[in-house]
């Protein structure tokens, strides 16, 4: 294994870990709102969150590239206020991944929230528990399989992301080159051995993660007998 290979793998998992972490923090309130609100606006937000499932990644990537470009208003504004450039940078890859993996976090969490009996939330309310306390003491602990599923799917999906990252991040070693891009890069250079190295590691890791999830989920569902 070359240092370049290690560097790319480390970068890939770093992006996936940060994306998953941020998505947990953003996804919980968003999924909570989507699961419980009665507002009409919900349908619009639901559609936006689900868009990356059907939108070609290059389309999302293209628009992100254009809007994050310092030549345009949004990119300029972000650069002035946060001193942050989002095109062809590590941070840009993170932002792109977050948007693109959003449905993989929000959907499991949303169905997790919806699956909790209404009477549990009502009981918490009649006991005078605040919404925040209800979330942490009653709701989240009773939807662990959903939390696990959301985190793992987001992580795995970010590891395998190609289109958005290539468009927003480009192919810069150690900065924006993720494993899936490295595979493409190596195949173009006819370096099949290295490409296979990347591909096999991704395959093995993804398989183990999913296997672990199914095993853990089986244990959860056995625990919840009633």
């Amino acid at each position, binding site marked *: 294994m070359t240092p370049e290979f290690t560097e790319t793998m480390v970068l890939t998992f770093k992006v996936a870990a940060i994306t998953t972490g941020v998505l947990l923090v953003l996804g919980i309130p968003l999924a909570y709102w989507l699961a419980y609100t009665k507002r009409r606006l919900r349908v619009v937000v639901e559609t936006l969150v689900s868009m990356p499932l059907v939108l070609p990644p290059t389309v999302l990537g293209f628009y992100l590239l254009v809007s994050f470009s310092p030549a345009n208003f949004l990119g300029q504004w972000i650069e002035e206020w946060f001193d942050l450039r989002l095109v062809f940078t590590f941070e840009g890859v993170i932002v792109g991944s977050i948007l693109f993996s959003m449905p993989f976090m929000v959907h499991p969490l949303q169905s997790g929230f919806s699956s909790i009996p209404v009477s549990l939330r*009502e009981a918490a309310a009649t006991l005078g528990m605040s919404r925040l306390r209800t979330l942490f003491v009653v709701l989240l602990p009773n939807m662990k399989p959903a939390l696990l599923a959301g985190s793992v799917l987001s992580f795995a999906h970010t590891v395998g992301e190609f289109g958005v990252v290539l468009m927003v991040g480009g192919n810069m070693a150690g900065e924006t080159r993720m494993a899936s891009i490295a595979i493409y890069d190596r195949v173009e250079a006819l370096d099949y051995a290295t490409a296979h190295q990347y591909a096999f590691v991704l395959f093995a890791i993804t398989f183990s993660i999913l296997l672990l999830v199914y095993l853990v989920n089986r244990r959860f569902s056995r625990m919840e007998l009633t």
Partner: protein
Amino acid sequence: MIRLDVKKQLHTADGHMDLVFQAHIGQAEFATLFGPSGVGKTTLLRMIAGLLEPDEGLIQVEGITWYDSKAKINLSPRRRSVGMVFQDYALFPNLTVAENIGVALPRSQRAAAVAELLEVAGLRELANRKIDRLSGGQRQRVGLARALARRPSILLLDEPLSALDLTMRLKLQEELLALHRRYQPATVLVSHDLSEVFRLSHTVYVLDRGKVIRSGTPSQVFTASQTSNKFRFTGEVVHIEPSGLIFVVHILVGNDVVQVIATEQERTALNVGTRVMIASKAFNPLIMVME
């Protein structure tokens, strides 16, 4: 003192139904809402708890206005001093028995209050059990202890005993009475079990299609209005024959024909096919025409 005066239009399987309810419930009073399912009993409890908003009316508990449609006041359930036992108990499955009971209490009071309630509700040995390891009766006790933990002004019980078998139900009725005597919350019970109403409540409100049709003490409501019958059957007149100065009325009750004596005056209301009720006080059977 609790003042209730609420109205709400409900959409039921057979069209609209106006739920109208007015009552004054005294401190430590045990009131029961009685009636068949679908007459709005649970809806009333939910409106008192704040889980459902009435269309109009007033709810005042111990001088505090919880709901007033005119003044546009509607306290959220979190700010109402209620304890509610749900039909499915709604216990938190991720917490133990002791944690369920203490979950709503401030940390400083928690240990002492939980210990007392565990003792009173007979749950001490089960304190560290998870909810899925409890029987129905044990769950019911936990639900009740949890509802009482914050010493609510009003305790709401939504058919808490309906899922239990008869022996367990009788036992828990006793325990419920004991807990009520000890903590003395004003209590509203929803029930469709007559014996439960008699054993537990001071006052009963009989509901039918959203309206209170009778109210008072259980004995007033269920016996006085029915002439303290010793027994009664319903049946259908199948034959009437004169016998001297009186008439012998043959009435089909179930699969048996019963013969009852009627005077000429009583007979005038009776025809073959009339639905009647036969009731007996001590010695004299009476025949009453039913609608």
